[in-house]
């Protein structure tokens, strides 16, 4: 949350993605900026830009000459050109630039292709059923706390091969990286050290006791005949843990939040299972959780805006998905939307590595929820709380079963 930052006056000239107004409902802000700017600026975080149209978001995503992915989470620490080990970055491949990016990404892609992901579906379905069974007999509970947040964390823990009981620890790390971005950088450094130490212990345990999971996969992986450096393995594990948990938790929660408030949609989806594929894509479009970031790689003029090397740039794929120039009636959720080129998983070479995993989890989580609770509503809409920062989803979601 925003302990340290003053409230935003005008988002066009002073935006802050941790501001309570943005956290509560960013869509009107982006709609307004799309009319007025369409690239907002802020002096916060050492200087940051925010394009809000689909065209401009796409342009940045495809431009690896003027923008670097060396770091993708905007915080008070603005790294200089030598502060991070480019071109690999701290958490490859999300923080890597070409050409190295392609090499490390190709190494990982087979583990995330549809076929290996499908193998995780039975585990995910059983998990969802068990979580729902634990709510048996109650007419109201917090769906974020008791259902959505447990699903991706346990799937990723299984995927990486960590002890299941460490799930709570992971949620603490994730909050640190993604939400507590306005804390002083020395406090963040200390917490990152603890995260690195946890990963070091897991890597050591996997070296001593190899098993069939992603951690052992990374330890065994070779590029051009060489094993990956320790820091590379650790960075990728941090990435997979963080990127795989908060994001999908948010997408499942936002989808339930929508269905809780739209009886027609939830009844139709419960009655027409064949609608699930387009519904999942539409919910991903409308409530895309992830805003990425780039650093400007060199001084240049971006459509009249004086971009300087080292400036932050927030890359709001959720805003691109709400651009009326790219989508008909973008504010309307249409579960049968047939034409849907949404950018929820990004665009270009950094397309979310885990998109097949996220889709599977979202689909299974909704199928199992609707099978047990086809009719439900928000207990108290004002009690719903949303995460702050670059990943948006409900963290408190009290529902009443009808």
């Amino acid at each position: 949350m925003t302990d340290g930052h003053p409230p935003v006056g005008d988002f066009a000239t002073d935006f802050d993605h941790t501001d309570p107004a943005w956290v509560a409902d960013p869509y009107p802000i982006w709609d307004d900026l799309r009319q007025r700017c369409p690239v907002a600026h802020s002096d916060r975080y050492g200087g940051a830009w925010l394009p809000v149209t689909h065209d401009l978001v796409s342009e940045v995503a495809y431009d690896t000459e003027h923008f670097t992915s060396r770091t993708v989470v905007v915080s008070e620490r603005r790294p200089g050109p030598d502060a991070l080990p480019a071109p690999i970055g701290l958490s490859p491949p999300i923080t890597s630039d070409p050409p190295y990016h392609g090499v490390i990404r190709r190494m990982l892609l087979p583990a995330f292709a549809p076929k290996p992901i499908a193998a995780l579906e039975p585990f995910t379905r059983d998990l969802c059923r068990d979580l729902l069974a634990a709510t048996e007999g109650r007419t109201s509970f917090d769906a974020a706390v008791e259902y959505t947040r447990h699903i991706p964390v346990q799937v990723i823990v299984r995927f990486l091969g960590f002890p299941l009981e460490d799930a709570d620890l992971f949620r603490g790390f994730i909050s640190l990286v993604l939400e507590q971005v306005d804390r002083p950088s020395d406090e963040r450094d200390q917490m990152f050290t603890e995260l690195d130490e946890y990963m070091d212990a897991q890597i050591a345990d996997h070296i001593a006791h190899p098993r069939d999971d992603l951690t052992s996969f990374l330890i065994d992986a070779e590029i051009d005949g060489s094993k990956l450096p320790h820091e590379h393995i650790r960075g990728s594990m941090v990435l997979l843990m963080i990127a795989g948990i908060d994001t999908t938790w948010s997408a499942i929660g936002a989808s339930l939040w929508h269905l809780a408030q739209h009886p027609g949609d939830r009844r139709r989806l419960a009655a027409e299972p064949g609608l699930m594929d387009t519904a999942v894509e539409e919910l991903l479009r409308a409530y895309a959780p992830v805003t990425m970031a780039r650093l400007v790689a060199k001084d240049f003029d971006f459509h009249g805006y004086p971009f300087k090397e080292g400036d932050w740039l927030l890359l709001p794929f959720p805003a691109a998905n709400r651009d009326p120039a790219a989508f008909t009636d973008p504010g309307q959720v249409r579960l049968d939307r047939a034409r849907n080129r949404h950018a929820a998983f990004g665009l270009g070479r950094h397309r979310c590595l885990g998109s097949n995993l996220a889709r599977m989890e979202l689909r299974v989580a909704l199928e199992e929820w609707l099978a047990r609770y086809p009719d439900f509503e928000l207990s108290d809409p004002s009690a719903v709380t949303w995460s702050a920062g670059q990943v948006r989803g409900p963290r408190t979601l009290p529902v009443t079963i009808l």
Partner: protein
Amino acid sequence: MTHATLRVHVDPDKCQGHNRCYSVSPDLFELDELGMSSEVGDGIVPAGLATQARLAVDNCPEHAISLTEAAATEAAATEAAAETEPAAEAEVRR
């Protein structure tokens, strides 16, 4: 009676593995080990799958899929194959 025969093609330089085309139309696309898509065979779209082919184009976030009219000779050669798949029409979801 003839109708335009269509050919679908995935630009491998643009495909980033979103997997939308394969999800919409598994009969027209196939995925490699990395999850990257390409058209099945020569990309000629059987008559019953034209709707699926258009949906694949319209759902690719990277604009990597093209749909063009195939040359007449190719169309003639594949017409018979298209005739054998009337059941595919039922799989068109919308």
